[in-house]
């Protein structure tokens, strides 16, 4: 079984290295195939492990070697396959495999095809490290690793030049990549601090050593640790106010968006909270957890609101991802860790599917992303329409698709915790989710074929790609039925979450309310858009619309309030302080010395008479000194 752990972990790594060997040569399709195969192997290993664990409840723990050993600090490369990590492993490896296969088709014409697979597999490896590590430092390795891969992949088309925000809200892939990396780094600092707190208070970073000791620690320590770790989670999972990078990350190739910015990496924050549930679940940190839930709810709503008016196919999905992450955090914050994890998995499937579908559309539309320029694609791209429709239904929470079960559970638990405001917001958000999902579907696939104006001839994706996507579709459709089994499986490790009697009674009513909102949203969308696009100047110029379509002006705010002042301050530091004060002081000292040399050489007039006068002057001075000193003492 230990070998399986290593296989699951290192197959993507091997894949990455393999692809790396061909990075300098033109496209080699077999690179993609080999990579996909290796990923599939990883999936098989993960699945076998999952099966094994499900069967035996045995946690597999391996320690490869020591990494950093200094003083009392000992960090090994240790990996653990337990219920939580194996769930993640399966999800990650599965989605990755699909995305790899998909990419063979999607990146078909890209000259950096091989490089893409190298990066993509490297990402999977990092993600595996992240989820499998048995300690916080190892988690951080993966954490940073996925960050870098995300940077590489967002900036994959680095050759695109910067444009203004009006033309492309993300400016350029390389800009978006840097933004993502730097924003993540801000959060990573929090994560690091969390690690430090844990180390200095428990003397270890191993999960199995840290968690038992938590009970001994003071509330202050626990709260700061929880806050610090959550800050880390906020960055990776793009929670407000560190959310802007996620939509900009859509500059990356669509498979990347599917894998990294929907299914896996962005859920790392949620994973962290789930992983550290012994900490977040403590009485002492209840406040933090409630804050997490509240923030999650807020982000769910906040992101959904921006998705309502967006015209960019991928950005809409990105906002929806953001929104769904909010749901997950809400669940995790409320203590419903397993529900959060369940939603995480379900979301991974349908959101990846949605993105891949969007990728198909892009591929068909020659990288056009404006849904206002699409329409009626259903006729050209039936399978894609089906997939995206399915995924959207799942997203909207329509039974019996996966999203229904998971989201409903979250909303239910919000009600269960008595947080009616959260509950209400989540319900409203569910409605909004349904609306924007179907707004997108209708505008893309129904109505009039607006793309014709632009001379685009859309075509369906390669068949093998469509087949490759099918596992996701299937899972998006049926995963919800595994909920009870999953609960049984996962609560071996995670705390159970029992709905109160009261909630249990109201469960069906609550579900109905949510469903009503969802269906309402779909109907509204259908009403407005199924016939075709009817643009209204008035609406589009309204304050709310502009506010939403400009993402509440937050990117601009960041640019104006942070980026620009930072650049200006840097410039001031350099030109005014470093050069004009610090360095100038040094030079001034040197100059004063030098100038005083110029000044004092005047006494060296060359005229003997002056020299003699100096001599006599010296004599006078010395005699005076002699007199004074003798007078003094």
């Amino acid at each position, binding site marked *: 079984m230990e070998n399986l752990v290593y296989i699951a972990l290192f197959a993507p790594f091997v894949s990455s290295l393999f692809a790396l060997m061909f990075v300098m040569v033109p496209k080699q399709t077999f690179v993609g195939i080999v990579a996909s195969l290796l990923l599939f192997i990883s999936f098989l290993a993960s699945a076998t492990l999952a099966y094994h664990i499900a069967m035996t409840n045995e946690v597999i723990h391996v320690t490869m070697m020591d990494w950093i050993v200094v003083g009392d600090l000992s960090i090994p490369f240790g990996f653990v396959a337990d219920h939580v990590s194996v769930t993640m492993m399966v999800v990650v490896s599965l989605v990755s495999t699909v995305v790899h296969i998909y990419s063979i088709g999607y990146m078909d014409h890209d000259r950096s095809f091989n490089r893409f697979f190298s990066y993509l597999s490297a990402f999977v490896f990092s993600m595996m490290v992240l989820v499998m590590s048995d300690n916080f430092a190892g988690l951080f390795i993966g954490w940073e690793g996925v960050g870098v891969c995300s940077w590489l992949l967002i900036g994959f088309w680095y050759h695109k030049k910067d444009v203004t925000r009006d033309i492309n809200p993300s400016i350029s892939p390389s800009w978006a990549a840097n933004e993502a990396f730097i924003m993540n780094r801000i959060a990573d600092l929090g994560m690091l601090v969390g690690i430090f707190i844990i180390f200095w208070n428990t003397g270890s970073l191993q999960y199995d050593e840290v968690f038992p000791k938590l009970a001994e620690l003071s509330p202050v320590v626990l709260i700061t640790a929880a806050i610090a770790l959550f800050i880390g989670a906020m960055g990776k999972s793009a929670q407000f106010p560190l959310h802007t990078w996620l939509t900009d990350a859509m500059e990356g190739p669509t498979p990347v968006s599917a894998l990294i910015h929907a299914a896996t990496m962005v859920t790392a924050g949620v994973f962290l909270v789930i992983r550290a549930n012994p900490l977040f679940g403590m009485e002492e940190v209840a406040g933090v957890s409630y804050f997490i839930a509240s923030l999650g709810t807020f982000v769910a709503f906040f992101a959904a609101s921006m998705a309502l008016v967006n015209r960019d196919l991928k950005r809409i999905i990105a906002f929806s991802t953001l929104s769904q992450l909010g749901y997950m955090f809400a669940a995790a914050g409320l203590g419903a860790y397993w529900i959060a994890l369940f939603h995480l998995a379900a979301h991974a499937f349908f959101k990846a599917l949605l993105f891949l579908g969007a990728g198909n559309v892009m591929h068909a539309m020659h990288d056009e992303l404006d849904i206002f320029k699409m329409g009626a694609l259903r006729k050209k791209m039936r399978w894609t329409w089906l997939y995206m429709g399915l995924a959207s239904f799942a997203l909207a929470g329509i039974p019996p698709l996966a999203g229904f079960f998971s989201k409903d559970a979250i909303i239910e638990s919000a009600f269960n915790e008595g947080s009616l405001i959260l509950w209400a917001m989540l319900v409203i958000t569910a409605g909004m989710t349904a609306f924007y999902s179907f707004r997108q579907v209708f505008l893309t696939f129904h109505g009039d074929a607006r793309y014709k104006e632009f001379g685009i001839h859309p075509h369906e994706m390669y068949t093998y790609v469509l087949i490759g996507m099918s596992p996701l579709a299937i899972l998006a459709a049926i995963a919800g039925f595994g909920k009870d089994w999953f609960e049984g499986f996962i609560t071996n490790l995670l705390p159970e979450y029992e709905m109160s009697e009261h909630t249990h009674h109201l469960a069906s009513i609550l579900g109905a309310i949510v469903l009503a909102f969802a269906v309402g949203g779909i109907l509204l969308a259908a009403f407005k858009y199924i016939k075709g696009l009817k643009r209204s100047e008035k609406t589009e110029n309204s304050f709310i619309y502009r506010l939403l379509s400009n993402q509440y002006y937050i990117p601009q705010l960041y640019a104006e309030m942070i980026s620009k002042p930072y650049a200006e301050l840097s410039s001031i530091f350099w030109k005014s302080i470093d050069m004009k004060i610090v360095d100038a002081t040094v030079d001034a000292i040197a100059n004063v010395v030098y100038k005083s040399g110029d000044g004092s050489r005047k006494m060296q007039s060359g005229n003997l*008479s002056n020299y003699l*006068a100096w001599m*006599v*002057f010296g*004599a*006078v001075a010395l*005699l*005076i000194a*002699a*007199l004074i000193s003798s007078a003094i003492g």
Partner: protein
Amino acid sequence: MFEQIAFYFFSVATIVLFLITAFSKNVLYAMSALAAGMVMISGFFFLLDADFLGAVQLVVYVGAVMALYAFGMMFFDATKDVKEKNASTTLVVLLGGSVALLLTLIFIAPILGANIEASYPPLEGATNPQSVGLILFTKYLIPFEVAALMLLVAMIAGIILAGKKMDISLTDIEEDIAISEEEEMILDEKDGEK
């Protein structure tokens, strides 16, 4: 009483004469005043029972030194006033005056020690030149010889510096005039290197 009168006379005389030396525009006046001042100083020496020293002062200064100066003066036109852009009088008076003041202030102190035994008192009953002679050729024999050496140095210096050979400077003349064998060799070597 005589001593006092003599002291003050010599004092005033030397001060006046030396002031003339220091401030006169005419070389002749200055030198004459200097010579006269030297004579007056020998007066101090006689007053101080240093007969030998007084005599030496007269012989050396008024005789030798002044002769030398006069000799030197023959090079220059002594009849005309010397044109000097003298240093500003303020500076001169300030510096000189402060030295005078400071030294006077210092010299007011009771310098003469009461319990100091003379290391080399004059011999009982001997004249001053006798005592001086005795000590000069015993204790101060070495300085005396060194002084002789110094005078030799001065003589050589005078001869060389004033000599004709200094008129043409070998330092300034480029080579090629007279090259010794060794020098030639070195030059050849250098050429070889090129």
